[in-house]
């Protein structure tokens, strides 16, 4: 077993899709939110909309760390990177994200030392290899990624590596789901829960959604069969009039999560009182900062951080798309002023942002007119 190909089996996919059609009430319109941007990406990457019943609508949620990061934080990070002797290390996802004065890649073009890393531990390795430079790791991500940053900081402290720091932009998923559910124009029937976040936090943190909001949550894997099975489980709950937390992704997600990962996070991070989310505004207790015990490795304490705030362009309707009120193509800027190459709004920034995914994978499927040659 490879744990990948098995879950892309065409025959079983076709059969699961038939079962979905049998279970879905043709008189109803279903609105399910996949919280995680990885799911959004998978839905488009695998073309799952083509196999789902037409009356099941998937709303793309806030779980894209690049998309929800305010532009001001990118400006802050790059302002530190411009200081002499600093190496700016970040995941590839961050490299084309625009700040007001350009993206990390554009800064690289101006001679700023910008490096792509695959892992926070690779950033620490850069610091070990370049003792005469300061390596600042631009940390992003939800609870899936935060433990890796935490463990990297624990190792940096234990080894006494002092030319290394983290600019912490880690966020937490539950407050974002709450903010979306609190929005008055929100109509959702159920949630496809974020599988990889749940390897860390487990399934309990979603219980209030079932209990208080009476909406099913199925924690889901990312292969086509995982997602189809999760939708099947949601439909079965709805048909039975239930609202429960179910774990479709049992092979990977323990119900209680990963204690060692949570412990590492608690050792290094504490909740910020509030944090700004692109498209959603300020959400209280929705992000992590580095504890004072690790101040020496906290870029925000080591460097002067300008604390730049950038208001999103008014015309970009990211908030509405994020909440599922508008579809990506219904935004006024979609595909004209706002494209993956020149993103204006948050959701066009990362390939897993719903607008970028829609633009890249879906958009032209429905366009019937031929594309005119450049005049």
């Amino acid at each position: 077993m490879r744990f990948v190909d098995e879950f892309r089996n065409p025959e079983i996919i076709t059969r699961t899709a038939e079962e979905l059609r049998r279970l879905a009430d043709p008189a109803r319109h279903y609105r399910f939110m996949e919280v995680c941007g990885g799911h959004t990406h998978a839905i488009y990457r695998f073309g799952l909309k083509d196999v789902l019943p037409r009356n099941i609508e998937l709303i793309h949620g806030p779980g894209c760390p690049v998309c929800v990061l305010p532009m001001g934080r990118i400006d802050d990070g790059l302002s530190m990177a411009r200081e002499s002797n600093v190496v700016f290390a970040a995941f590839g996802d961050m490299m084309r994200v625009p700040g007001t004065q350009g993206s990390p890649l554009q800064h690289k073009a101006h001679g700023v030392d910008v490096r792509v890393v695959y892992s926070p531990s690779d950033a620490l390795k850069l610091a070990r290899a370049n003792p005469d430079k300061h390596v600042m790791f631009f940390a992003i991500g939800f609870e899936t990624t935060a433990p890796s940053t935490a463990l990297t900081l624990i190792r940096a402290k234990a080894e006494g590596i002092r030319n290394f720091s983290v600019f912490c932009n880690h966020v937490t998923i539950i407050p974002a789901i709450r903010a979306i559910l609190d929005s008055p124009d929100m109509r959702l029937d159920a949630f496809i829960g974020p599988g990889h976040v749940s390897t860390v936090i487990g399934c309990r943190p979603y219980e209030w959604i079932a209990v208080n909001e009476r909406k099913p949550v199925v924690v889901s894997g990312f292969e086509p069969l995982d997602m189809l099975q999760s939708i099947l489980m949601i439909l079965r709950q709805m048909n039975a009039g239930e609202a429960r937390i179910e774990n479709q992704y049992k092979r990977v997600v323990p119900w209680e999560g990963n204690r060692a990962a949570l412990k590492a996070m608690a050792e290094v991070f504490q909740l910020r009182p509030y944090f700004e989310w692109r498209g959603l505004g300020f959400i209280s207790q929705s992000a992590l900062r580095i504890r004072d015990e690790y101040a020496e490795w906290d870029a925000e304490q080591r460097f002067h951080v300008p604390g730049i705030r950038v208001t999103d362009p008014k015309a970009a309707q990211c908030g509405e798309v994020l909440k599922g009120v508008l579809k990506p193509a219904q935004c006024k800027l979609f595909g004209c002023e706002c494209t993956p190459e020149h993103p204006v709004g948050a959701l066009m920034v990362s390939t897993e942002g719903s607008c970028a995914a829609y633009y890249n994978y879906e958009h032209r499927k429905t366009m019937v007119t031929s594309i005119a040659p450049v005049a």
Partner: protein
Amino acid sequence: MCLAIPGKIVELVPGSQHLGTVEVVGVRRKVDLGLLQDNMPVPGDWVLIHVGFAMSKISEADALDQMRTLAMLGETELAMEEVQGYGLGDSGEHEKPN
């Protein structure tokens, strides 16, 4: 939001407390196993890898269970149709002893 994929532990790196070599379809990399310290994997185990860290052990039993559940989808209905095709269950006749 998080790209994480399954890989097989092929070796625990000698002389290190927390590093293991994983293989993902012919590609090998050292990953940090520190987040699994409560339940350290051994060579042959499958783990979920995210940004160079093993996040979770993958249970083959649960995966097989899922595949069985999915493979059975629709079969119950098919079996019912077949049974009806034999003309069974449409009268009480067959329930008579002998």
